[in-house]
């Protein structure tokens, strides 16, 4: 049976380094299988998050050979096995131990978002065509790979000023819900700093659910912010009538 070497980051906030593990390669094996093999046979204290093993829960995000991946769907036979496979924790989030990082930031950002708010007399009829685009956003499994690769968070650590792609997707799902009545543009503009995004589409590239984060969520939201706050005609109308104020 073929053998692979996994070069896994072992450490915590006080530091650490890579450790090599030899793992037998079975057909169709994924990187998460290899990590489980290591836990079961060599390093029972190797920390890694996982749940469904079928790309539905978004728990096992990591950086495999430098690429942000769900490890449960990263096939070993797609990687060059003649050299060690490097497995690192997500870089953007503070490390807890080994491959596990502190993603609590995401839960804090999420709390800032006003919930779905239908009007009181809503008639609960919606056409499939009208919800298709919202259902795209609701596919998000919260793997946080988009947050991990976004340079505003990864390189510039704007964690307090910027919401990040995951939460723009979530807000897009609320804003474009046919029966929602609340505007979240002020939140987007001020607290979640959507202006920092310069649409490099890194988030879209890594999304394991193929959500068109930049094109379908972020750009339309940016347009809404512009319409509400920077459109000169609307600005004049607001000044004159006092209406349409956000």
């Amino acid at each position, binding site marked *: 049976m073929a053998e692979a070497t996994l070069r896994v980051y072992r450490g*915590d906030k006080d530091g650490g380094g890579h450790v090599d593990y030899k793992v037998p390669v*079975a*057909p*169709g*094996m*994924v990187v998460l*299988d290899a990590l489980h093999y290591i*836990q*079961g*046979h060599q*390093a*029972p*204290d*190797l*920390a*890694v*998050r*996982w*749940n*469904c*093993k*079928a*790309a*539905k*829960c*978004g*728990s096992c995000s990591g950086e495999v050979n430098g690429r942000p991946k769900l490890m449960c*769907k990263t*096939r070993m036979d797609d990687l060059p096995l003649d050299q060690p496979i490097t497995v690192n924790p997500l870089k953007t989030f503070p490390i*807890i*131990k*080994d491959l*596990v990082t502190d*993603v609590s930031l995401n*839960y804090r950002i*999420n*709390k800032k978002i006003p*919930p*779905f708010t*239908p009007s009181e007399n809503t008639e*609960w*009829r*919606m*056409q*499939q065509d009208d*919800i298709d685009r*919202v*259902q795209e956003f*609701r*596919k998000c*499994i*919260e793997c946080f790979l988009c947050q991990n690769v976004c340079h505003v968070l990864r390189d510039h650590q704007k964690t307090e000023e910027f919401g990040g792609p995951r939460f723009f997707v979530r807000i897009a799902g*609320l804003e474009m*819900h046919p029966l929602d009545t609340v505007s979240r543009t002020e939140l987007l503009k001020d607290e979640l700093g959507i202006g920092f995004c310069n649409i490099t589409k890194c988030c879209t590239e890594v999304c394991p659910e193929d959500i068109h984060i930049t094109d379908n969520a972020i750009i339309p939201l940016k347009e809404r912010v512009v319409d509400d706050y920077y459109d000169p005609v609307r600005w004049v109308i607001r000044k004159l009538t006092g209406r349409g104020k956000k």
Partner: protein
Amino acid sequence: MANEKYETHEHDVLIIGAGGAGLRASIEALNQGASVGVVCKSLLGKAHTVMAEGGVAAAMANVDAADGWKPHFRDTMRGGKFMNNWRMAQLHAQEAPERVLELEKWGALFDRTPDGRILQRAFGGHTYKRLAHVGDRTGLEMIRTLQDRGVQQGIDVYMECTVTKLLKDGDRVVGAFAYWRETGRFVVFKAKAVVICTGGIGKAWRVTSNSWEYTGDGQSLAFEAGAELKDMEFVQFHPTGMVWPPGVQGILVTEAVRGEGGILRNKNGERFMEKYDPKRMELSTRDVVARSIYTEVREGRGSEHGGAYLDISHKPADYVKKKLPSMYHQFKELADVDITTGPMEVGPTCHYVMGGINVEAETGAATVKGLYAAGEAAAGLHGGNRLGGNSLSDLLVFGRRAGMAAAQYANGIGASSVSNDQIEAAAREMLEPFERASGESPYDVHRDLQESMQNLVGIFRNQEDMTKGLENIYQFKERAKKVSVDGSRMFNPGWHLARDLTNMLIVAEAVALSARERKESRGAHARVDFEKLDDAMWGKQHNIITRNADGSLNLSQRPLMEMPEELKQVLAEDE
């Protein structure tokens, strides 16, 4: 008073588990004015509910106008081979539509009918098109909706925190002892009522659709606290798990594939369900389909890797991708199979436990004061076999009821105290594996347990195998007492497994004991040495497991509750 050495939190209602049942319970307990804490082993939003695919069963009659609570009740009872708690089956069928519509009001977006209502699809054992769904990711929609609602309403969530003991004051449950997975530090929760929503036990088998979390924690916690477990022999093997490649073996292939028209064939191309259930074919109940596939394989007509072929490729490719998107990706990426052009290979996988903590239908109250349970951890609704889609609706209906009852109970009960001894004993127990310098790895014992349960207490059972299985469990229990773990208490999966293993051993023994005793075949419990239903005896009684004073398991039988005349009439009516 709680021991001051440990971090302590206090709530009116403590909910263990943050899947659909736990979150729905927490929302309801909050509505009742209770302060609510939710403890969960994983991050919020990653619980098993997220993996539910096909849909939530509710007789809304949006597609088939003839549907209603009575047909749903009948289907559930018949599917469960009448071992169900009829009152739960009734409440479930009556309340599920309202619970689904409520989700929509909280922001869930189900697929639509042409006239803009919630679309419903066909599923095994359901007479009508009944499953509200979002493609094949219904559970994700549900858990996200509930989690956003709960967080918005103000639940306190303790993520990546594992409960190891329920704390008692006399005969009352008044809290829980837990550890933070991240740091390994201990934490004490004081509560007036505790609701167990911890899901199932599937990790005790080798081929399973269940994640690492499904180690029977809730059932074991309740058992240790003196509560009854009921009908633990009824373990559902879902007919369609992936079988190839080896790493994905057991991963769920949603029943929605068959709901959307998928056809099962053996290696000779025969549509073998014609033999086993000519009327319902692929949409027979899960127990029947699982045994049919297993039988085809055993008799030499299996697929290349020991399963059956499941084919949906006769449907238009775009339709398959729209209605079964995650199946499409799952097979493409993990098995190199394009399901729009060719068949999948599928075989049975351990999926769900119908048995569990014995609860009162209306309130989810367990048989110990202050303790409640809902969802997969509780027994009753599904009887001997669960229909697909009835789990998500179970979580909503009985999560809400348990949350409400727990909060009302908490509202009317006075202060309690927890002895330091209990807390110190719980802490000591957790630290023991570190103190044993040499010993087996818990992973070794776990692998052996899984193999034994797979081979000896699986889909088809007999007396001899189960006796052997039980002997194995007793040996594993001895080995589990001697496992040692390496490393520190910080996020240490080996240490976590050492604890989870003790829970799996309790539930595995409960399953094997109950299954060996039930000398008949009923629903998911199939015996080769007792192939027929025994309505005269076993159709009239439940298996009940309780804890003896020395910690061992005690098995006894209890008669079924007598069904009222009006429900008997509903069952007798046929469409």
